[in-house]
């Protein structure tokens, strides 16, 4: 399904969370689709099942997936609440980064051009979220 970088400094559960988010955001995993069970994934990736459980819990808390007892975990419909929560966090991070960039001498114009560039690479700017 995917591979993890076991040599990376980033904790494995964080890598898992990020990988799944990426898959969900890019519609590789579609709404209602079942995520691999902890057992399967542990066997496939040779990582601790508790780590996977932790990643799934985190994803559930952030609203990306939901779980049904005895059935497994599924991709959530539209994580509105989670999105706004996430947006708040991103804004805070951006604020930090932008003020740093400004401090280091980047101009507003440069930043603007930069944003447009990113928008293009993400996909034309027509993301209906």
């Amino acid at each position, binding site marked *: 399904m995917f591979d993890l970088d076991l040599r990376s400094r980033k*904790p*494995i*559960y964080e890598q898992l969370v990020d990988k799944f988010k990426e898959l969900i955001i890019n519609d590789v995993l579609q709404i209602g689709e079942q995520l691999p069970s902890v*057992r399967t994934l*542990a*066997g496939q990736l*040779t*990582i*601790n099942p*508790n780590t996977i459980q932790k990643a799934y819990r985190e994803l559930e808390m952030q609203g990306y997936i939901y779980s049904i007892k005895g059935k497994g975990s599924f991709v959530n419909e539209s994580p509105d609440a989670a999105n706004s929560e996430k947006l708040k966090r991103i804004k805070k991070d951006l604020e930090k980064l932008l003020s740093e960039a400004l401090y280091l001498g980047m101009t507003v114009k440069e930043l603007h051009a930069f944003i447009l560039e990113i928008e293009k690479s993400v996909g034309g700017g027509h993301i209906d979220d």
Partner: protein
Amino acid sequence: MIEVKNVSKTLDNMDVLTNVNFAVKRGSIYGLLGSNGAGKTTLLKLVTGILLQDEGDILISHQSVFENPPVKNRIVFIADTLYYFPQYTVKQMANFYRSVYSTWDEKRYEKLKDVFEIDESKKVQKFSKGMQRQVAFWLSFSAMPEILVLDEPIDGLDPVMRRKIKNLIVQDVADRGMTVLISSHNLREIEDICDHIGILHKGEMILEKDLDDLKSDIHKIQVAFKGKTPENLFGNLRVLYKEERGSVLLCIVAGDQEMLTEHFTRSNPVIYDMLPLTLEEIFIYEMGDAGYAIKNILV
């Protein structure tokens, strides 16, 4: 599942373990780390009921282990030096294990034959070190233990076999909630499968934590300032290590990521990098803090 409470042990008038406490939950993979001679093997021998502690309690599912066969039936221990009966073949060893462990699963034994590809009619003691270790794992996995205790398990195994063994461990943990206690000083090897870590030093447990918490609780930071480094930059942070490399200050600091970022950016650094630590680095710096530092030896 495993509870070790205030355990002390003296061997040959040496205090090997003093007041050790830790607990391993069911279905967890616990990594026991430690400097050479820290008492890891002794601790494992106590947990498996081979030795009796002088003080304290060792409980497995609330029962004491020492001289308690029903509890021991649920534990398999792979020691760092393996022992096989002289002249015994793999098959004969398997028969012995079957007679000892009531949980022995013959089907599993047959299935694992394909994994290890070892001739079961050969004498075990004639095998190489790595092969003998494979036999140990083969027999252990067939015994279907609730608790698997491993002392330096990956020594002498090739990378493919390591991966296979780890995969089998992880599957057993996922499938039947097996509890695993691993001691090692090869940190890279256990970093990817453990969820809890305990660091033992000179017979004392100096650190015991969830691995992810541990990793997110300690950071490597590189900062540089225009001009001079501000005085009192660290405030009351716990600094485990610091080093100046030219104008860049490299330090290992304990604390939460956000809190640290806020703390450091307040003094407006020109460069600010934060990296999570590898387990190896955590080990080295925590041990350094406990007075077991790396000293470059000049001969």
